[in-house]
């Protein structure tokens, strides 16, 4: 295995906001700590400020006046990217068309004055690590999308950066390749053990790669947590709906039960509420015979998606409920079914978004 700076650097983003010259606020002042060796994913829809945050950490954008960026505790706010010793993978890869694959990977080392032999050895190491052996002398325009992605990663890692920054590195690829590379990238990042900040709008990427996920919305941090927390305990409706599929139900509460058109659904905790906004993940809803669960509804449609089947059930609550049932359940549209939901699976969200 390849030797790396153990764990890389820790990062602290302190009160960093970004207002562009034309007055638009791209990022509300935010504070974020990223531990040495951690993989942090910035996740959100386009325009949520995730890329701006990444560019501030990279040194490609200056934060507004009060903001500071610290690497391993030392202030790097005023240093441009070329002095921060970060590795960066761009969405469009930014590979140099005038250089071969090997020269691209070795460029950062050349800048650092690393001798030819040592450079060649390091390039060979990375070529092997990223599975692009045989492409060393190719020109960039002779590479496929997936190969370019690997070269970009190899180039960013070659300089043994303290922090690796990836800006939607898989977005430019087609779906099948994206899934495969995601797995590869995950193994690689784990092997490198370097502090990594990864920007994406794809929640499954975020789930698979992130030690922690920062969900961003309209230039502000909506929630920070590990993938399980983000998925099962979303802090608000936006996070619940952005990560995975979610049924959001607004209903009055009586004695610890949601009062729904199809019956009464028990909820855990919070007994003294009058009304609630609740989130229920489709796969936490069990399909049983009508009458064997407190909640009943009618199946509107069933779509078989291989590993599971997605049902839309109406009449149970105010709006159609999405249910992911195992593919062994036989049920067809028009049938009345019972819905069994564990009280813990009902997540109450704050009334205010």
């Amino acid at each position, binding site marked *: 295995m390849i030797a790396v700076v153990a764990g890389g650097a820790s990062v602290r983003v302190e009160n960093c906001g970004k207002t562009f010259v034309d007055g638009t606020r791209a990022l509300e002042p935010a504070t974020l700590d990223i531990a040495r060796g951690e993989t942090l994913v910035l996740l959100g829809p386009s325009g949520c400020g995730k890329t701006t945050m990444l560019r501030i950490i990279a040194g490609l954008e200056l934060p507004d006046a009060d903001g500071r960026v610290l690497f391993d505790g030392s202030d790097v706010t005023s240093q441009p*990217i*070329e002095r921060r010793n*970060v590795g960066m993978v761009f969405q*469009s*890869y930014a590979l*140099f068309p*005038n250089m071969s694959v090997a020269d691209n990977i070795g460029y950062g080392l050349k800048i650092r004055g690393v001798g030819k032999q040592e450079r060649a050895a390091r390039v060979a190491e990375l070529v092997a690590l990223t599975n692009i052996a045989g492409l060393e002398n190719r020109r960039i325009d002779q590479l496929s999308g997936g190969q370019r992605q690997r070269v970009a990663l190899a*180039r960013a890692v070659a*300089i043994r950066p303290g922090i690796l*920054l990836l800006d939607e590195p898989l977005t430019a690829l087609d779906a099948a390749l994206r899934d495969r590379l995601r797995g590869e990238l995950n193994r690689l990042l784990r092997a490198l053990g370097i502090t990594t900040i990864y920007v994406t709008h794809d929640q499954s990427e975020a789930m698979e790669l992130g030690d922690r996920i920062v969900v961003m919305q309209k230039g502000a941090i909506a929630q920070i947590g590990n993938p399980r927390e983000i998925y099962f305990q979303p802090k608000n409706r936006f996070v619940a709906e952005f990560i995975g599929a979610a049924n959001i139900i607004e209903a009055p509460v009586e004695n610890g039960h949601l009062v729904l058109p199809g019956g009464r659904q028990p909820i855990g905790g919070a007994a003294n509420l009058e009304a609630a906004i609740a989130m229920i993940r489709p796969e936490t809803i069990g399909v049983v015979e009508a009458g064997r669960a407190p909640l009943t509804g009618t199946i509107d449609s069933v779509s078989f998606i291989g590993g599971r089947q997605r049902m839309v059930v109406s009449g149970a609550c105010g709006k159609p409920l999405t249910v992911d049932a195992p593919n062994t359940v036989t049920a067809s549209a028009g049938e009345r079914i019972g819905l069994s939901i564990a009280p813990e699976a009902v997540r109450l969200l704050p009334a205010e978004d």
Partner: protein
Amino acid sequence: MRDRLIFVGQLLFTLIVAAFLVVPAILSISAGITVNYFRGISSGITLQWVFQVWELYAGTILLSFVIASATLAVTLVAGVPAAYALHVRRGRLSRIVEEIITLPLAIPGLALALALLLTYQGFSDFRRSWVFILTGHVIFTMPFMVRSVMAVFGTIDVKTLDEGAASLGASPWRRFRDVIVPNAVPGILAGSLMVVTLSLGEFNLTWMLHTPLTKTLPVGLADSYASMRLEVASAYTLIFFVMIIPLLVAMQMFADREQAR
């Protein structure tokens, strides 16, 4: 059958148009190597006019190439970074500067020359030297260099390439040298091609700015047409032709090769 007729028709038309353009050049060149043009080619073929022109105008021809090279050097050194700066900075000031650089395209050479003369006639050493003509040529050719380099910058993602190089630790100068310029080569070549040919062939501005000691090829040509026999002037055309064609072909080949890569 019908396709064949159309093809022959098109071929004939093309040949006629080509002949319309090429024949005068051939006539002029052949005039330069005939003993007596009015008696026609039957009077014999000679190189005496060519040698005569070379004796008379060798200095002029040399100066033309010196000025063209100097013009190229100045437009490269100033124009390429300028194109980069104008591309990267998208503000209003940049657009104004871009307009100013482009302005000489719209202003007649005579007017440019007049302005230069009015402004610098007091500096007599400058006025008398070939650097004065160089100034005019740089003003006149700069938009071609800046525009063609900017056109290439428009087709590559300069900002991301620059940021990519910066992320690997390259200083602004290294980035410009290692990444920006090599990727702008097609535009730089196209610009160079135009700058050199325009500088070599520029007449009206140069004619206003020249002194008896600072003549360029086209000014010398006008001079020979005005003051010498037709054969001499035609021989001059021949020399002009021989000098500029290989240069054009070489640059074109270079540009093609770059494009094929």
